[in-house]
């Protein structure tokens, strides 16, 4: 049920990709996205696909779990493809048809582009725990602290939100079960009836969320939490050789893509 949402879910593992520094992975995803948008011809699309597949293989992620992540976007992907098939000028596949060879090519490329974009970013969230992700983000953004941007507070909020998403999902699940056991019906009835049926879930959920927030704040303050100033961390992020290698490879990939674009492949 609710628990099976996989969007952006972390799959624990111990592969090279899992062990890379989160900062490296965030930078690589940025590089990957820039590179992806350089792709124009079949050869460059082929190269991005190949790189994505290699990364997936390296991180030992099953194609089926990747497909689950792409599935919610399926509608958008198909719609984009259809629009491109019908609205691209060129030589018709049969005299008199509006479907053109160029349209089919464009449609396939657009689909590839969206799927690759999703796969690339999912690779990051599948292989990096939310805590590592926000830690990495905080360190990457830390130059902004000079400009008085509250980077630490922002990433702290983000990591807390991420931390409590599974808790809240589990809690919603539990409250829903408990109300179902008393005969609550969430599946049938008119729109208004269904909206009303949500009340027995929302009220207990909000009550416990506020209580939880209050308790968390007390727990943090009683351990002298006072924001980012002068705070050290238990898990230091240290760049390793593999991070350097990964970044160099990423930059090489980007260069290759730019060159391919220049020569029009």
């Amino acid at each position, binding site marked *: 049920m609710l628990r099976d949402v996989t969007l952006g879910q972390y799959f624990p593992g111990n592969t090279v990709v899992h062990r890379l520094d989160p900062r490296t992975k965030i930078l690589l995803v940025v590089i990957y996205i820039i590179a992806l948008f350089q792709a124009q011809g079949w050869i460059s699309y082929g190269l991005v696909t190949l790189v994505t597949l290699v990364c997936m293989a390296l991180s030992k992620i099953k194609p089926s779990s990747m497909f689950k992540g792409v599935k919610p976007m399926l509608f958008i992907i198909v719609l984009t493809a259809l629009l491109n098939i019908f609205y691209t000028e060129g030589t018709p596949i049969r005299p008199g048809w509006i479907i053109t060879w160029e349209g089919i090519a464009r449609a396939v490329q657009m689909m590839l582009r969206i799927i690759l974009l999703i796969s690339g970013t999912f690779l990051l969230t599948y292989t990096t725990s939310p805590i590592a992700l926000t830690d990495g983000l905080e360190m990457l953004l830390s130059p902004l602290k000079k400009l008085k941007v509250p980077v630490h507070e922002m990433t702290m909020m983000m990591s807390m939100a991420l931390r409590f998403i599974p808790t809240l999902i589990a809690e919603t699940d539990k409250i829903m079960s408990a*109300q179902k056991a008393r*005969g609550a019906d969430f599946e049938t009835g008119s729109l208004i009836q269904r909206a009303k049926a949500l009340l027995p879930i929302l009220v*207990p959920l909000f009550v416990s969320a506020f209580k939880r927030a209050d308790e968390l704040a007390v727990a943090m303050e009683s351990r002298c939490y006072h924001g980012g100033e002068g705070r050290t961390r238990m898990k230091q992020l240290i760049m390793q050789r593999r991070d350097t290698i990964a970044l160099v490879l990423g930059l090489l990939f980007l260069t290759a893509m730019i060159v391919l674009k220049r020569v029009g492949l």
Partner: protein
Amino acid sequence: MAEIITEKLSHVYSAGTPFESTALHDVSISIPQGQFAAVIGHTGSGKSTFIQHLNALLQPTEGRVLLDGQDINNDKYTRRDVKWKVGLVFQYPEYQLFEETVYKDIAFGPSNMKLSKEEIDERVREAAAFTGVSEELFERSPLELSGGQKRRIAIAGVIAMRPEILILDEPTAGLDPAGCAQIFENIRSYREKSGATVLIVSHSMDDVARLAERIIVFDRGTVVMDDTPASVFSRAKELMEIGLNVPKAAELAVALRDRGIGLPEGIFTHERLLAALLQLREGRKC
């Protein structure tokens, strides 16, 4: 008649993901009408998963659940109807209270059954009486009451549906001894007056030993013992090995027997232990 049977029940959570875990494996059990049964087991042994199958909140991965010979997961109508017959009180049920008043919250279940106003009113008052919720509280907000009161209101909310089978998941967790005793007493009196089957998950071995007619022991998703309290608690050593307590009296009897005091098997309540010890003393005197 309300006999509930599980046939080779298995349940796997998050099948097909790296988080896959088998919570139940091949559980076949039959609970006849009117029985007072207890489910015990270490945390994570699958007790909660098991009982959520009995009112179709969870669907078996394999196997079936039968109520009076009918598969309760036949279609969505049987899945809903079974909720009236099998009342399930969750662990920490006080977190499900949501209405503005205590009365409305207890009435939530019966109103979902589409009963008449009078019928609902009768049931709410009856359930409140069973659980010792005084009618003076009816117009108060459930959120401003004490933990023990909230717990009893939540139990009343399920009893108000007059289930033929009442299932409670650790109903006394986190309560003080007086609160525990009161809840067990409420459950006992509901069963006595209504003749309902009661299935209770509990860690309170002394109460279980005193009240239950049958004890089902879970360990890592399977049933490892299923017998009368006398037989189950006579295997105190095995119970302790799977991380369970035994009633204080049984523990003491085991310790005394280990020191060579010839107590008979099957002692698990204070009364019996006392009687056996007195009998021994009588024997010595002669």
